[in-house]
């Protein structure tokens, strides 16, 4: 096994372990910490596969922004902090579904002859990724951005609620 191969399996093991911990923690803050480790490991996997740009973006966007928002919400809600894993009864059905999906994936990928060949090592430069996104797939990228904008506007509208008589539409000062 090459050094990169060893690194791949190490990162994959960390990823799986952290993902299982994320799904089973009773304490939401512990779950967030484990999820951050998951995203760091995914970023590392991208880097090992020769694509540093998606790897770093994974860390910047998911670990650095989205999970911080999760943590922010949990801190604002002040949920009671439990400890240890969730009870086995609640994990049974999702666990079976997850295991079945994993099994199906392994069977499907194993049946595909294209999955048997080893991919050549490649280095994707940031410029190449950018060209692919904004040249080849520009329509999909723009469609997603418009969709996200629509979702944002809708969330803002719903979150504000209806202004009562004589009441301004916005909340108080600040944010």
């Amino acid at each position, binding site marked *: 096994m090459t050094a990169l191969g060893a690194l791949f399996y190490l990162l994959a093991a960390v990823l799986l372990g952290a993902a299982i911990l994320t799904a089973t923690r009773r*304490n939401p*803050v*512990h779950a967030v*910490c484990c999820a*951050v480790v998951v995203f760091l490991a995914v970023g590392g996997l991208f880097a090992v596969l020769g694509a*540093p*740009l998606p*790897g*770093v*973006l994974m*860390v*910047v966007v998911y*670990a*650095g*922004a989205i999970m*911080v*928002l999760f*943590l*922010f919400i*949990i*801190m*604002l809600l002040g949920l009671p*902090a439990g400890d240890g894993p969730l009870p086995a009864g609640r994990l049974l059905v999702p666990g079976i579904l997850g295991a079945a999906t994993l099994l199906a994936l392994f069977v499907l990928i194993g049946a595909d002859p294209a999955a048997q060949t080893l991919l050549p090592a490649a280095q994707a*430069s*940031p*410029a190449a990724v950018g060209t692919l996104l904004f040249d080849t797939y520009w329509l999909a990228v723009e469609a997603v951005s418009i969709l996200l904008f629509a979702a944002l506007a809708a969330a803002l509208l719903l979150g504000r609620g209806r202004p009562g008589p004589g009441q301004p539409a916005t909340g108080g*000062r*600040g*944010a």
Partner: protein
Amino acid sequence: MDMWLGVLVMLVKMAVVLGVALGLAAYMILLERKLLGRFQVRYGPNRVGLFGLLQPLADGLKMLLKEDIIPDGVDRRIFLVAPAVVAGTALAAFAVVPFGEGLTFFGHTVPQVIVDSNVGLLMVLALSSLAVYGLALGAWTSDNKYSLLGGIRGAAQMISYELALGLSLVPVVMHARSLSLSDIVAAQSGLPFALMEPVAFATFIIASLAETKRIPFDLPEAENELQAGFHTEYSGMRFALFFVGEYVNMVLLGAVTAIFFLGGWHGPFFPPIVWLAVKVLAVPVFLIWTRASLPRLRYDQLMALGWKVLVPLALLNILVTGALLVLNA
């Protein structure tokens, strides 16, 4: 053989960079106390060693000897790890910071950077965005309402200003056509980007002031309302780690400002390393000066400045830069 030589060179480089970063951070604390003293018409620390030069040593020793108190009701694991996250992410970012062009030893060219990554700029941003976990988790786990308020403020502030920080760097990347820090410096051999992109420079400096949580943006640790904010419950060396993180961050900010906007090691007459040192140190002095001169913002002013001024300004600047680049092409 060559591989082991490579590993050895890498280890030596890491040791040098960590030593310089930590040493500078320790003396940054002394510099800040000295300058603040002068701004307030007093001497500042001058008792330990000549001109107080051994003060950082005395401070470190004192912190190490203090009792490390872990309060009841904290989440032990997270409480212990949080300060290390703050200091660790700041130190790790130095891995992509170049200190000059390659040096040649016995026919081998050794680049003066630990990793010359082609996504170096994004790595700096990624590590600075991870630093917020140390603050937020330390605040949450302290089980103290003032800490929690400080942590919530810190998280909100850092999410808001990260956007402006990232957007203000886009024009730099557009000019340099690369995310590698070495390439960005090479692109400034003529004119530094601070002169070519003054608006981007201004937004970057303001946003990074907020990211380092210093006055006028030190809402997460506003003493007069939140005791010490997120690090209220910390003591001894763990408290010191938060501070090491903050001052390493100041040095890091100096280094990345020098590289992104001030032309890195380029400059007339003096050797490159002198120019780099002068530029790296100019930024912390500016930060200390603002701390001595400006009052703290109100929280809603902080949010309004970030979202209503800096983000639109940075976006507009990207648009103008893009238009000018297309017209000139």
